[in-house]
């Protein structure tokens, strides 16, 4: 309950004291799609520091994480971002899934509870974004209802979306399949872990910012 009030207050004040010209850039997607990895890559590229922890265990990010004053420059243009890394959205959370990663029952149950709260927070934050990057794991089937629901909600709110197909360094990845699933959107393939194709990503990111109201 305290966490919900704290997050609500944070959202409220971030709206009131929004600095002029700052772009609130959200990272959305399923758990383990690579949202924090990409946010970290961007922070490393422009600030030389990380934003959050990454892990193979799903739902590592269970609270909204932010990094302010991330200033990016490209072709003479300077844009100030507030990066907002959100917990992965899922339709189900089973604590037993965490046991497979060596977590104790107690730790797994705690993680599951926090994960469900994180999902609720992520959905609530949809309204506060200026632009959103939807991360899709390019090694998995892109036709997941979570991806469709997130993108549908962003379109309904007229929030510009850039789809990033992550993990293209892995053999199983299939960027064509991601592009085929979302033909109406720009899809950029990257490896956030290795920093592959980040130039094209930044190019598309700057184009995306132009689209916002």
């Amino acid at each position, binding site marked *: 309950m305290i966490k919900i009030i704290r997050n609500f207050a944070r959202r409220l004040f971030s709206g009131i004291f929004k600095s002029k010209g700052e772009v609130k850039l959200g990272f959305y997607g399923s758990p383990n799609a690579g949202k924090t990895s990409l946010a970290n890559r961007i922070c490393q590229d422009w600030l030389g520091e990380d934003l959050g922890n990454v892990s193979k265990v799903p739902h590592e990010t269970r609270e909204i994480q932010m990094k302010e004053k991330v200033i990016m420059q490209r072709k003479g243009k300077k844009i100030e971002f507030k990066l907002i890394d959100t917990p992965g959205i899922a339709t189900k959370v089973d604590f037993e899934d965490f046991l497979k990663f060596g977590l104790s029952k107690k730790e797994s149950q705690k993680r599951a509870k926090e994960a469900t709260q994180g999902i609720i927070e992520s959905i609530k934050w949809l309204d506060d974004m200026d632009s959103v990057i939807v991360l899709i794991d390019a090694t998995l089937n892109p036709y997941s209802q979570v991806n469709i*629901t997130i993108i549908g909600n962003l379109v309904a709110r007229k929030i510009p979306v850039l789809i990033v197909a992550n993990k293209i360094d892995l053999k199983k990845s299939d960027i064509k399949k991601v592009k085929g699933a979302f033909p109406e959107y720009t899809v950029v393939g990257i490896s956030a872990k290795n920093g592959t194709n980040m130039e094209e990503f930044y190019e598309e990111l700057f184009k995306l910012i132009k689209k916002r109201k």
Partner: protein
Amino acid sequence: MAKKSVKKNRNGKIGKKDLLIHFMPYSEIAREDTIGKIKKIMGIILKNRIIILQGKLKSDEEARLIENSMTLIGNIPGFQGIEIATLSGENDNGIFRRIRQGVARILVGEQDAITIIGPASVVKEITRDPRKMELMLSRR
């Protein structure tokens, strides 16, 4: 409300291990607001039934459904969330088809689709591509 008839066990009762599928015409929820739709859907899901809905929910309704199911995890024993997938007939993007779909959507709601919603404890996984959906059910 249309329900698939299920074979009852020897006692004539529906056993805990029986699988129930609830076919829901869109008209059943068409007049409900978002909360009403979610209440109706969750009421059926919590009885461990799979819903086959004629049509689909709006994206904000889907988001609210996910939010709602998250609040129930940990509070209702055995409830792990939901599985949901929609197969939509929006592959033909011709201008006349889109206009026709838009008009139909305003008049009768989004019916050119099928949505499957089930409790995650029953529906292990739904895999879909633009042409088909496959349900993997848990052994009960």
